[in-house]
């Protein structure tokens, strides 16, 4: 049933996307990689730096793509990552 | 000239196999809109009304000279919503016309052809094919030469004594470039044609097999250009021997790009760099420049389905090959080659296999010995509107081959162009269809470089439009 739509929808700008703030507690991360794997918009990737635990924590590729689904928040076993909605103050 | 009885269209089309399909024609005008001859002969040639006349007044259709003006480019067939083939319908009517004694109508047609085509002999031989309907080719050629001389004498009287100061550069001496040169020279501009090969003609010289266009006729037509003052510089390739930007510095006020599509598409398959695997354009140039490759008694495999593939196969057979087989990855309906020529090729002994694609080339001591093919099936539509071929697992088979000719499509080599000249997605130059001007002011383009591989008559038509545009453009410069 799903048809292949080739057009970019006309209201793609209008559909309000909440702006996200991704907070990563680098030193709490144990490098399991679940957040990177399960992010539906592929916003995270493994960074090159090494944290206090000796592993590579994730880093944000493009914060604009984050849809605030909070999968990463839910799946991290160490509570090392969470997202917050950016409050619209100065005409964002 | 009247015959004893009135001929009906049923008799005329009795032996035409697709006559049943004609009932679907609903006079939409798409054939006339896509016809380059209708564009060139503005108002004097209308394929749609000839088609209608065949049904309503068959005698008038047969007696008309318009019947002989189809140049076999098959553009109408590709656009027709009913998939009709006007060139073949006209051929059937022509054959009947010759039988009923209306063969002389072709003389009027030649008059019109000579009027619009700057390469009359080339087009008569390679585009109009009067011999297919049973006319005598030598007579036709003599008649054409006669009318050509008459026409040129008339036209030369129009050339004024004082020529314009404007200079025009034409890159590429194919049919498009030569047409632009011809037209502008008669309008008193100074035209210089730059040609990369050692002799002018473009595809006409390089790839058209000699049996389709004997080179002496091409030379005769090009002589005319030299006569009226066009300078043709051979052996100079833009981008290598001189820079595109240098043309403006040299004082050329307008530039026409007619470089054609001479770069064969690459086939990314294992073994493609084995000895004996050649690009079709290289193969044809070898034959046409006299260096006939050794194919006697060999098995030749041609990969591709366009006109170049068919020409390569026929040439290979003519050079003495034991067997020449074309392998095309889609079916006969999607084959881009001229359907009539495909039939002629098959009559000459060329074999064609459909729905096959090469997987790898197998070699022996660095020389190709066989090709592994996989059978294909047609899936969903892709971007070109044709069904995408998908491989059928486990259907591989091997065919022995002494030479493999790759003819999977040609693209223009436009590496020399500045970024201001925008290209289409498929790598051809984008032009305004009304003026043939590119996105860079004063630079025009036409022919295969714009449309991708197409026919001679389309290139001539594009050249005419471009020449008229260039004339307008140069006049507008004078007014400033």
């Amino acid at each position, binding site marked *: *049933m*799903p*048809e292949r*739509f*080739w*057009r970019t*929808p*006309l*209201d*793609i700008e209008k*559909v309000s996307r909440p702006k996200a703030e991704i907070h990563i507690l680098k030193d709490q991360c144990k490098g399991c990689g679940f957040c990177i794997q399960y992010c*539906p918009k592929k916003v995270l990737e493994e960074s090159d730096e090494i944290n206090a635990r000796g592993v590579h924590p994730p880093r944000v590729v493009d914060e604009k793509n984050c*849809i*605030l*689904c*909070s*999968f990463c928040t*839910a*799946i991290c076993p160490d509570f090392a990552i969470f997202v917050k909605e950016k409050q619209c103050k100065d005409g964002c | 000239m009247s015959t004893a009885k009135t001929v009906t269209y049923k008799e005329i089309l009795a032996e035409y196999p697709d006559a049943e*399909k004609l009932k*679907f024609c*609903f*006079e*939409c*005008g*798409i*054939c*006339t*809109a*896509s016809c380059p001859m*209708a*564009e060139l002969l*503005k*108002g004097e040639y*209308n394929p*749609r*009304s000839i088609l209608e006349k065949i049904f309503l007044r068959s005698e008038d259709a047969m007696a008309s000279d318009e019947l002989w003006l189809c140049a076999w480019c098959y553009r109408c067939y*590709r*656009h*027709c*919503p*009913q*998939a*009709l083939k006007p060139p073949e319908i006209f051929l059937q009517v022509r054959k009947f016309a010759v039988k009923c004694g209306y063969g002389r109508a072709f003389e009027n047609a030649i008059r019109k052809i000579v009027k619009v085509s700057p390469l009359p002999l080339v087009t008569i031989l390679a585009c109009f094919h009067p011999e297919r309907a049973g006319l005598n080719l030598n007579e036709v050629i003599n008649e054409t030469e006669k009318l050509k001389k008459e026409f040129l004498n008339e036209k030369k009287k129009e050339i004024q004594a004082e020529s314009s100061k404007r200079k025009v550069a034409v890159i590429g001496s194919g049919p498009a470039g030569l047409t632009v040169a011809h037209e502008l020279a008669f309008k008193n501009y100074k035209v210089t044609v730059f040609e990369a090969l050692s002799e002018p003609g473009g595809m006409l010289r390089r790839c058209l097999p000699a049996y389709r266009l004997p080179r002496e006729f091409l030379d005769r037509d090009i002589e005319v250009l030299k006569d009226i003052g066009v300078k043709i510089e051979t052996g100079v390739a833009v981008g290598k021997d001189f820079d595109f930007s240098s043309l403006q510095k040299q004082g050329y006020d307008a530039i026409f790009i007619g470089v054609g599509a001479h770069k064969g598409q690459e086939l990314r398959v294992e073994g493609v760099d084995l000895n004996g695997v050649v690009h079709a354009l290289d193969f044809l140039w070898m034959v046409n420049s006299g260096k006939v490759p050794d194919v006697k008694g060999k098995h030749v495999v041609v990969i591709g389905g366009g006109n170049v593939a068919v020409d390569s196969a026929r040439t290979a057979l003519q050079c003495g090959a034991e067997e020449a087989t074309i392998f095309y990855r889609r079916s006969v309906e999607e084959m881009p080659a001229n359907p009539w020529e495909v039939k002629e090729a098959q009559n000459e002994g060329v074999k064609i296999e459909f729905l096959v694609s090469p997987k790898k080339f197998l070699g022996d001591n660095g020389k190709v010995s066989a090709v592994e093919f996989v059978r294909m099936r047609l899936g969903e*539509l892709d*971007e*070109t*509107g044709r069904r995408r071929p998908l491989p059928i697992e486990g259907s591989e088979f091997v065919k022995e081959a002494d030479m493999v000719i790759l003819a999977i499509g040609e693209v223009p080599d436009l590496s020399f162009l500045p970024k201001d000249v*925008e290209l289409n997605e498929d790598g051809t130059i*984008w032009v*305004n*269809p*009304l003026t043939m001007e590119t*996105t860079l002011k004063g630079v025009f383009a036409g022919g295969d470089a714009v449309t991708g591989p197409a026919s001679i008559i389309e290139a001539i038509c594009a050249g005419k439009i471009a020449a008229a545009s260039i004339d307008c453009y140069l006049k507008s410069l004078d007014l400033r």
Partner: protein
Amino acid sequence: MSKEEIRIGVYVCHCGLNIAGSVDCKEVAEFAATLPHVVLARDYRYTCSDQGQALIKNDIREYRLNRVVVASCSPRLHEPTFRKVCEEAGLNKYLFEMANIREQCSWVHLYDREAATEKAKDLVKMAVAKAALLKPASEIEVPIIRKALIIGGGVAGIQAALDLADTGYKVYLVEREPSIGGMMARIDKTFPTMDCSICILAPKMSDVGHHPNIELLTNSEVVDVKGYIGNFRVKVLKKPRYVKEDCSACGECSKVCPMTAPNEFDAGLALRHAIYTPFAQAVPSTYIIDMNLCLNKDGVIVCDKCVKACERQAIDFTMKPETVELEVGTIIVATGADVFDPSALPQYGYSKYLNVITSLEFERLINAGGPSGGRLIRPSDMKVPKRVAFIQCVGSRSNKTGRTYCSNVCCMNTIKDSLLIKEHWPETEIYVFYVDIRAYGKGFEDLYKRAKKEGVIFIRGLPAEIIEDKRTRNLWLIGENTLLKEPYKMNFDMVILSVGLEPRKDSEVIQRLLTLSRTQDGFFMEAHPKLRPVDAATGGIFFAGCAEAPKDIKDSVTQASAAAARAGILMAKGKVTVEAITPILDVEKCKACGLCTKVCPYNAITLNKELKRIEIVEAACGGCGTCAAECPSDALTQNHFTDEQIIAQIDAVTEHDADKKIVAFCCNWCAYAGADFAGVSRMQYPPNVRIIRTMCSGRVAPKFVERAFARGAAAVLVAGCHPGDCHYINANYHTQRRVERLWKKMEQNGLNKERLQLLWVSAAEGERFASKIYEMQKIVENITPKEIELAKKVFQKSGGA
């Protein structure tokens, strides 16, 4: 076995000049009088007329006729008429037989009077031979369930549902999408009155939602259908919405859902979320979650934003698909049509050039509830265009796309669209490029004139190609103005392709489930194009709307009411009689081998091992006769198509000049209908074929073919429905098997197996039938007397004679 004398009356109809024009009816009647058991033979001008019928009734009484043969048109047309005549005169209706000397004789041999007359005589001889062996029969009555199933919830389905429900019957309305409404819900205004489409549809949709007699099953599909007229058992798969009916459609869940995707309802022009309602006026208004898009997969719930936002706590991720079984008496198919995808025409640049849109996308743009709020804007820069072009006949009337029919609605749709544009933006220049403007209905011509008055310019000549200007994204159309005989190269801001309608891509599924036939265009085939336009050939099934052919809203609604009325007739009667063509068992001969039980498509025969015989459930029998053909002990035969009757027909044909004749067995539903269609279309073919009608090609037992050859027939043709399209589900597979065995036997005995031909032909393929006869004629002409004799010997040995 009554010792009653057989008294046959033969009527040879002139049918005006339809038959008399190519057949000498008097001669045929005179010939008929010489046949055994015939006591009366007449020729008459219009036998089916009142006077003709009165004549037959009178003759039955006066001459004590106990069998009647009418040689006229096809039994598919008038057998019911004449059977009624016999009944009214006191004669059992199964003692009547027809010879088809019109569709299968006079109309296909228009120019060979002598041969046509000879053939007519043969056909009458065959009918008389069978009539002599006919026995009276009584039909069993089956009760009809007074419930209806409607497949498809577009305007046609909705109208049919309301009509049936208002009459008092229970209706199940099954719709594949989450909401009813179909295509009509997406359109902005309707022609010719320019009514707002959803405004006139929404009240009807609401009525359907509230009607006590209508059970609405949305987001559901029919997956299995078993049974027969009046007694269908249908399995419907209800796909889960994941939202309970407590949903108040407040929309808070959609606001917080993070996932978005192009909305199918808006033709991909706008976005929707994973939890959504297709459009504002959806019925039922309950929201639905698209699990392909939702982040929660395989039962793992991580994102619960919608659950938190829902005040009614209506979201339930544990919902599962449910299969329900419904018992209904009638089915109405209102599945609608798809829209042609112009990506198949690369010269128009759809899906490459942003400003080339289809008429459906136009409807959504100009609809006030659509993605642009009713502003017609160019997708490339969101500006209102100043010059617009409509291109007609995109995908329709074209041999190249394979859709050669006219889609009816596109011309009027374009005219309506152009008036809508002029209403809002009067300065916009509008050009319509057409080949023919079809404004055939009521008020249509007026709308066309109005459009011309408003300044819409109509140019006759379709563009050959569309070229885009890279900088402005404008489009050049290059074509020929055929009326002025001038080429045109025009520039436009936006181009709208007036696409046609095509059959649903998955109409094959419904076709298989309900054993329906399709015409060459791919739409469903009605029983008779003029006299039974909403009935399917299968009893108890009716059509409404675009499923049967492209049509506008008025015609869809009209047809829906007609289908509801037809279904109502059946259900009002409360019972339906089953035709008495069920099997007859000779218990003595039955050896309980069970072969017949394996071939019955309806599982109507069971093997009783204790009693060492088979048992037949007559109500479930479809009447194909495959069991009778399969029985190796001659214990089974089919009522009204008994072995003796068929053999009598074969013998009648092969009595004279058998070596020049083709004996053809044609199935009633496809092959015979196809031969009729060839006749209706006046396709001519050689006159030496003699057709014997059976209900199904599965009835043709090998012994019939052997008998024909043993009697010296030149060739035999066995014709049936295409595999998969068999009216009796799969009985024709057995035909294939039997013919292959016969071919092997012929080869083994040195016979030319080309003399036996197998043809699959549909009711719409008259041409195929005619060309097959031409092909076989060549075979007949080349047969030597030696071959005829050899075949006679081979098959006489095997007991054929």
